């Protein structure tokens, strides 16, 4: 972990380079790896998405760049002055408001939408090699965890097993959380908070000695980082439970291989050994879930085609078989459809069986 003083210095260095260029009569510019699909490479060796070697340059005296250039420098200076130098943290939204203002003499706002300042922060990540968390910028917290784990967070000691029905809510930055005591055989991550609540109520984590983590929908950076830390620091297997549809498959894919927008952070966010528990198309047959099918829409087919053609899925026979079946059934199925077998079917039968028999998809 880069210490705070150094992080502030890295940003200052970035600015000094630009100042120096102007002093020498040069058009100030900086370069960084491109972060779009054209520069995303699937690295066969590490089995993660990585940035390619295409480099973009942003220069100040260029009409197409000037505003973004100014935005990036302004975001950097705000982060340095307001956050790093004062050891404070703020949200992405805060950064947006710290930067937002009308440029004097114009009707132009320096940033108009939060996505603009968000982009600048991602750019600064690749420019400086510092991650957003290291820049003291947090996202909204999202997701809950429960398990036989004791942590230390900002001086407080917290036992995840003693937080009742809500569990511990996962902050966006988990870098500085100390995992003091971890007693678990595996981590089960699910895309549905409702399923997590079911499992928590059934004390699944106690009975099966595991950690339960849920988000709602997409997996945040904080959760991905937390999952990775369990794998890296405690060698815990990570299992993923999603809806039986293409979006579930992609949630799994992001955790396992990385994502396009955060390819520069793959190393510290992806877990190549993660496994997919369900719901699979085979589960549908085994547990007779056909009557709970939801019909696919036009967009779903397009997405199946897109995902099935990704390099990291292309040669995966098991997954290709799943995609094929989705198209054959013309349908998808939710995790909660298991409740048709009984409300605790998932915690008493489905999960224990699948995990015991190691019926996973890779």
């Amino acid at each position, binding site marked *: 972990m880069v210490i705070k003083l150094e992080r502030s210095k890295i940003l200052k260095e970035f600015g000094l380079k630009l100042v120096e260029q102007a002093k020498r009569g040069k058009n100030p510019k900086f370069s960084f790896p491109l972060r779009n699909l054209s520069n995303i490479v699937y690295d066969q060796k590490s089995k993660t998405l990585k940035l390619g070697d295409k480099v973009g340059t942003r220069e100040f005296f260029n009409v*197409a760049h000037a505003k973004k250039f100014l935005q990036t420098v302004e975001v950097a200076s705000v982060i340095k002055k307001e956050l790093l130098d004062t050891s404070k943290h703020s949200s992405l939204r805060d950064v947006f408001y710290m930067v937002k203002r009308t440029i004097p003499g114009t009707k132009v706002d*320096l940033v108009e939408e939060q996505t603009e300042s968000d982009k600048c922060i991602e750019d600064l990540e690749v420019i400086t090699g510092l991650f957003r968390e290291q820049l003291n910028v947090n996202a909204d917290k999202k997701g809950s965890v429960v398990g036989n784990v004791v942590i230390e967070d900002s001086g407080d000691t917290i036992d995840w097993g003693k937080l009742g029905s809500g569990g511990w809510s996962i902050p966006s930055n988990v870098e500085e959380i100390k995992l003091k005591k971890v007693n678990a055989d595996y981590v089960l991550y699910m895309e549905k908070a409702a399923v997590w609540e079911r499992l928590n109520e059934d004390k699944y984590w106690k009975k099966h000695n595991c950690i339960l983590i849920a988000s709602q929908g997409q997996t945040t950076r904080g959760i991905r980082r937390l999952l990775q830390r369990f794998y890296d620091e405690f060698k815990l297997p990570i299992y993923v439970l999603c809806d039986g549809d293409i979006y579930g498959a992609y949630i799994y894919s992001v955790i396992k291989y990385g994502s396009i927008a955060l390819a520069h952070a793959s190393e510290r966010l992806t877990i190549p050994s993660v496994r997919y528990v369900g719901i699979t198309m085979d589960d549908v047959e085994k547990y007779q879930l056909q009557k709970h099918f939801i019909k696919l829409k036009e967009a779903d087919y397009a997405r199946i085609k897109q995902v099935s053609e990704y390099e990291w899925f292309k040669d995966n026979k098991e997954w290709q078989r799943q995609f094929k079946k989705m198209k054959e059934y013309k349908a998808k199925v939710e995790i909660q459809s298991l409740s048709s077998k009984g409300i605790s079917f998932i915690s008493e039968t489905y999960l224990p069986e699948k995990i015991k028999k190691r019926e996973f998809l890779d």
Partner: protein
Amino acid sequence: MAEKKKVHATKAHEMAESHKEISVSEFFAKNRHLLGFDSPRKALLMAVKEAVDNSLDACEEARILPDLYIELKQIKEGRFRVVVEDNGPGIIKEQIPKIFGKLLYGGKFHRLRCSRGQQGIGISAVLLYGQLTTGKGMYITSRVGPKHNSNYYELHIDTKKNDPIVDKEQVVDWNKEHGTRIEVELEGQYQKGKQSVDEYIKEIALINPHANVIYKTPLNETMNFPRGVNELPKEAKEIKPHPYGVELGILMRMLQGTDTTTLSNFLSTEFCRVSPKVASEICEKAKLSPRAKPKMVVRDEAEKLYDSIQSTKIIAPPTDCLSPLGEEALLKGLKKEVDAEFYCVITRPPTVYRGNPFQIEIALAYGGGLEADGAVKIMRFANRVPLLYQQGACSSAEAIIDTIWRNYGLSQSKGNLPQGPVALVVHMVSVWVPFTSEAKEAIAHYPEIVKEMKLALQDAGRKMSSYIRKTVKAREQRERVNLFEKYIPELANSLSVLTGEKPDIIEENLNKVLKKGMKDLLAVAEKAEETKIKGDNVAFGEKQDTLGEFEDGD
């Protein structure tokens, strides 16, 4: 007021004589709307128009640079006195009563020549209208030269006989070497804006840049329209009609009226471009003897003659009879009357419709003080006479609407006039301008005419669009520099916070870079913009994979 000095024994004259029972004057008195006096507002305009047209025609024919003085005076509600004074050749004493006090008297009626006069009933109609609405006649002062007397007349028209009644005649002192002044009182209405006398005079000054005009409005404003060029337009030559342009009825009348004794001779003398050889060819096709007496040709034979004319190859009429303003004069006229930032003028080469030579001139003004909202402003002229009414019915409107102005940087919805800060002048010069109706306010839709107008409009449009592109480019470049100037203090400030360096020094350095690299920067900027147009602006992760929604969280 100078009407034509040489008076032919014209058909009109004869006709007027031979139809005494139905006096033209009487007819007009009852049907004044047919001649343009259909509203008080238009009547005032017609009075000015007839007098001004005559003055300008007379000056040009006498090769005198025109100096016009026009004055409108409001006598009481709805009544005006119109004064038009020129420095023309004047009118000899004996002709004054006839020219002003007798309808359809004059030298212009059946001539084929570019003159203004073919377009109105004449100055006598103004007298008649004044007489009808106020009971007063017209007061005329005229002098033909410094050694001659100035003659003053007060005239009425005897509407039954279509003859002038002289109320008063005397020799007066007049400090003008030559010229004519008319005064007439009439019922009228004065308004500013479109189709007003003000607008008419402004357009007169535009299309007659060789004229110097002073105009005093009823509101006692004096408007000066100084001369823009010191040369008179080329003198228009009179030509004989071309056979293709003659209609059957006119052909029959010409056969009756000719002094020639054989058909062959009739054809080769009364028309242009008909050699004896062509004449006998026409006769042969019509199965008529070239020696036949023209007066003896009956209707059926005349029709055969007409048909054979149409099917005989006859070379186009000469075009030296046309008298366009020329690009230089029109440009000067436009520049002095329209405040714009860009001007262009297109004079098309002469060509022919139905045997009548004609020529189209287009002028275009863009930007500057021109109104940017709404449709472009159109000013139409025929033989240097402004056409203020019936714009929509005019072939020029068709030509303008059919031109695709979007290609030239103006907005235009289908079937409508283009929009933008543009003034268009369309001028048709011809020995015979075809009007859609007797009111003579809209040019008829002959395909040849519309085509010429469109070609000229397209040419002008192209010139305008290249100007727009250039200025827009220059403006954008200025804006770019401006943008950087606004951003520099911001960047200097941000960098200062980030690095601890002094903001004013950073700012100064950045300004130096801007100054030094201005040209290069603009070039780079243009390139960047081009790539942007191509949609290739992916350099900084702008263009995300469309998966955004399914991407990672936060």
